[in-house]
């Protein structure tokens, strides 16, 4: 895990709980050295996530299964109806199609409902373009496995395409598309329709919050008492065990009570699966001494809790003794089953993301007419850094906002009034601060470059306060909107303290702040705002940030993997969203409001 990478004396990190940490409302409090910032997705994938991230690839995300059905397909066969099969592709950035999977062939039907499902990973931070091709499979190929079929030999029945976010944001998680010809000629003939349904095949959303305590633990330390911690492992099919979590270390206590552990069903399997619970005495050398172990399933632990009984630890047989049953006992103080909804559960039930943009109009960007300026609009159509950031973030988030009305502001510029404003409406209108769609933001930005004189200094406080106001006020109407403020800036902050104060005040609201640094300035100071090192932001009044709501990335950071650095910012968003919702026990709606 993250905290163990080559730090020999990271004793404090080694003593933290791992894997079963509760989603605490307080940013740095509950996640230990091994959890890391991305740990909000849930324990089991932390190590794998870290593996991928270290290699520059996007972290694992939820798996989605697509089910397809079609209706009114064209009849290609003379004697009988078409025998359709569907192929699903992902259109990559370069336009090439990558096949994701195929359904089976259904004989003799113009309204097929395929059983075969296509799996793919849902990545919030990218736009996943899906392309569907329907083929009529010739009779002579009917006994050939679907994978071996050469598509060029089959009769093409129609094509459809969409973006994955369009499907998952619908309450029904289904989308119906009209089929058309390959060349997108909206043909004269009706080629039928294709319906795609997306499902998260998560076995169960159940999680268990469990509090353990022990009594009469053996003393393994010479001059003081043991420093016990528990490690819980799952028994795998081969007979061995796979650790799933460990508690924090309690120093010097033979009757410890640990903080509650939250384990998802993905981690422990089922309530009947055997779990091995080992109690160790923590040693700074890393060679922890085993105090005792026992084997119980989740259902057994629930029984222990109900009956208020303890289970005895045993010491496994070794070459000089038999298995010993110890006096030390394990008790379950609390046992609570709850539902952990996924990000897509919230989204498809009507929760939305509200995208807000703030653009830096300070003089350090350079005169927009000058091709060297960061605000230069290239007549050839090539995007400048500001446009790129707006597009990359906006085009992903726009699918999650049903009315597509985005607040857009500028700061550090001199508007018509003649005074420098640190939060003016980008569209130049005196009272309406919203624009329509990402194209509206781009148009307002281009327009503002003509009407606003670059000035300064670079202050974030007013824009953050304005976004916090929007977020706070929206809670009165409905608590299902989560707000994202994108600040694009070229320079270093002048109001570091006011910005921190504004962020601390906003940290308890449904708001995340993404900061993109463009140009070549030294952004070290910005990295202090993005509290990834675990230090919580503190305001001048002594208030400490409730959670870490800031992500910062300099645009010039080297490209890692297949997603842009700006889109890497978006990876943390589902986690921040879930932390906010879960700590307030806000669950997905079962019915869409009218």
């Amino acid at each position: 895990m993250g905290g163990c990478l080559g730090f020999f004396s990271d004793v404090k990190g080694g003593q933290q709980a791992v894997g079963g940490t509760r989603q605490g409302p307080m940013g740095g409090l509950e996640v230990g050295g091994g959890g890391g910032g991305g740990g909000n997705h849930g324990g089991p994938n932390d190590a794998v996530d870290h593996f991928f991230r270290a290699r520059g690839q996007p972290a694992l995300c939820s798996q989605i299964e697509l089910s397809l059905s079609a209706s009114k397909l064209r009849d290609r066969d003379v004697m009988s109806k078409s025998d359709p099969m569907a192929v699903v592709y992902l259109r990559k950035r370069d336009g090439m199609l990558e096949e994701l999977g195929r359904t089976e062939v259904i004989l003799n039907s113009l309204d097929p409902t395929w059983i075969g499902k296509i799996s793919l990973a849902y990545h919030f931070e990218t736009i996943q373009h899906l392309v569907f091709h329907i083929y009529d499979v010739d009779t002579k190929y009917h006994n050939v496995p679907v994978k071996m079929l050469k598509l060029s030999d089959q009769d093409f029945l129609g094509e459809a395409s969409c973006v994955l976010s369009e499907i998952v944001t619908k309450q029904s998680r289904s989308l119906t598309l009209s089929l058309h010809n390959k060349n997108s000629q909206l043909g004269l003939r009706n080629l039928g329709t294709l319906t795609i349904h997306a499902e998260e095949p998560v076995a169960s959303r159940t999680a268990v919050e469990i509090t353990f305590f022990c009594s009469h633990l053996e003393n393994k330390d010479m001059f003081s008492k043991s420093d016990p911690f528990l490690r819980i492992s799952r028994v795998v099919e081969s007979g061995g065990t796979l650790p799933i979590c460990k508690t924090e270390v309690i120093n010097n206590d033979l009757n410890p009570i640990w903080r509650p552990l939250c384990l998802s069903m993905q981690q422990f399997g089922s309530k009947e699966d055997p779990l091995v619970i080992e109690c160790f005495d923590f040693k700074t050398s890393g060679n922890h001494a085993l105090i005792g172990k026992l084997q119980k399933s989740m259902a057994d632990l629930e029984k222990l809790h109900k009956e208020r009984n303890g289970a005895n630890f045993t010491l496994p047989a070794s070459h000089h003794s038999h298995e010993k049953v110890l006096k030390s006992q394990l008790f379950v103080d609390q046992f609570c089953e709850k539902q952990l909804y996924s990000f897509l559960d919230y989204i498809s039930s009507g929760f939305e993301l509200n995208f807000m943009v703030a653009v830096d109009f300070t003089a350090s960007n350079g005169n927009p007419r000058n091709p060297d300026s960061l605000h230069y609009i290239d007549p050839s159509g090539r995007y400048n850094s500001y446009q790129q950031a707006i597009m990359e973030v906006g085009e992903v988030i726009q699918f999650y906002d049903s009315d597509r009305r985005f607040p857009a502001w500028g700061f550090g510029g001199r508007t018509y009034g003649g005074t420098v404003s640190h939060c003016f409406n980008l569209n130049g209108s005196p009272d309406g601060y919203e624009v329509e769609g990402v194209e509206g933001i781009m148009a307002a930005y281009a327009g503002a470059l003509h009407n606003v004189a670059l000035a300064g200094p670079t202050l974030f406080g007013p824009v953050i306060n304005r976004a916090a106001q929007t977020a706070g006020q929206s809670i009165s109407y409905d608590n299902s909107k989560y707000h994202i403020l994108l600040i694009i800036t070229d320079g270093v902050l002048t109001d570091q303290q006011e910005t921190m104060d504004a962020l601390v005040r906003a940290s308890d609201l449904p708001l995340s702040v993404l900061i993109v640094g463009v140009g070549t300035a030294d952004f070290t100071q910005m990295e202090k705002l993005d509290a990834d090192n675990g230090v919580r932001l503190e305001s001048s009044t002594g208030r400490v940030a409730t959670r870490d709501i800031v992500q910062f990335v300099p645009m010039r950071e080297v490209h890692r993997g297949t997603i842009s650095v700006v889109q890497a910012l978006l990876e943390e968003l589902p986690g921040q969203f879930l932390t906010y919702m879960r700590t307030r026990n806000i669950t997905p709606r079962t019915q869409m409001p009218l």
Partner: protein
Amino acid sequence: MANSHHRRLEVTVISGEDLRINDRPIKNNAFVTVKADSCGLPSSQDSTKPDAQSESHPCWDEKLHVDLPAGSRYILVEVCRRTSSAGDKLVATAWIPVSDFVGDYTPENYLHFLSYRLRDAKGLRNGIINISVRVVSSSYKGTLSSSSRLPPSVPEFRMPVDRERNGGTVTGMPVWYPNQWKS
């Protein structure tokens, strides 16, 4: 002014971090008292049970109820340690401005998760306290009403201008200009 109502608060004292006495982590039996600052007038207060475990990171997770009289500007959170021999010893204090959970943009009954820097009797930093606050009911001039979704009031950015500590030190706080964001 923001606090013209008499309010009843539900304060959940969640946990504390990095608490020390004489520069050593506090061992156990820390408890928290929450009361409203009512300028010398008698006020209600409520305390948690002592946390018998968890060294410098005590966990209480206890709900307390405190009355917030009209005109109160702060609630006071005190962390003390109960010892069998010497009674209760004050470890650290935090002053929480009422404006942090009343009169900001959020609805009246919003559950606020707040964290504050604690300071000891000398005014030195001594850990962090994590709480959540919710206004349960508020009454104005004798009429009692359960808090419903009141429209957000005009935001007030009142920051304490001075705070007197036992050590006689005074901390200056920046005064905020409201409506800073309008162009």
